[in-house]
């Protein structure tokens, strides 16, 4: 009797179903392999594909961030605000940032901050020379695609998009 045929004794077999399950199993193994490779590239955060930079025309404000983030996992935002005559530098982050993230640390600490209905505003002391570089560590509290905006004292706002995994 052919191996691929059903036996009725001592158990009732369903080789058609079993063959289908073996195929699904093997397809899933390939899927796992592909998923792991994608994870190594940074599709799920922390990798080459995840690191992203954005800047406004003229580089008034530039940002380094993780394109792919995970809910509750600390995410890092490196913000560079171009040098100017002023003693202070203002960073405005759009309302969705304030709503979706719990900020755990800001380096350097801002001189003052305030939150309005549109923006969350941070005012930093400028360094003696050169650009201001600030780092914000924040935990996403929502998952999904976040359309965020950052703006400085001058120039157009910088729009960037983050995907937060559940």
């Amino acid at each position, binding site marked *: 009797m052919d*191996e691929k045929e059903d036996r009725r004794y001592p158990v009732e077999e369903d080789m058609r179903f079993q063959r289908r399950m*073996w195929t699904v199993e093997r397809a*899933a193994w390939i899927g796992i392999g592909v998923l792991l490779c994608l994870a190594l590239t940074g599709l799920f955060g922390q990798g080459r594909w995840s690191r992203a930079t954005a800047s406004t025309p003229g580089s008034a404000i530039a940002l380094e961030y993780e394109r792919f983030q995970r809910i509750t996992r600390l995410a890092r935002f490196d913000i560079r605000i171009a040098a100017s005559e002023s003693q202070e530098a203002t960073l405005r982050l759009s309302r969705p940032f304030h709503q979706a993230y719990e900020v755990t640390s800001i380096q350097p600490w801002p001189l003052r901050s305030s939150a309005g209905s549109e923006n969350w505003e941070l005012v930093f002391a400028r360094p003696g020379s050169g650009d201001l570089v600030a780092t914000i560590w924040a935990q996403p509290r929502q998952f999904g695609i976040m359309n965020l905006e950052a703006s400085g004292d001058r120039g157009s706002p910088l729009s960037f998009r983050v995907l937060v995994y559940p």
Partner: protein
Amino acid sequence: METVLKAAVVYLIVWAAIRISGRRTLAEMTAFDFVLFLLIGGAVHRALTGQDYSLTNAFLIITTLIGIDVVLSFFRRDWPGAAKIIKGVATIVVEDGQPLPWRMRRSRVTIDDVLAAARHNHGLENLQQIKFAILEASGDISIIPYDRRLAAPA
């Protein structure tokens, strides 16, 4: 609501992972596999509880997982098709003392596995003493010896 949904998704992921890893993965529980399952449990635990360590959260997680399990057991009882998908099906791998190589290869069962089950459960020494070896849906190998009077009880 989030807790219930999370627990349901975790149940589905763990079920799918166990199902696609194949029956033999479950049956061949070595010390390393045991540690692996503990690690999986730990990873799932953090995802399930998050930062909510309240009794209410634990209660909701437990009831969701047990609830889904009970519902699936009803499906398994009433719909044979669902039972096959949820549990899998039994496959004969040795027939009349002859191994069925295509089935064994596909199921990742070796003759050594069959002989080990035959020794362990019935004290049998070789394949010729085995009438049927069946790879069960659970991943265990059941042995039906030729002459049951000669076989030691399990």
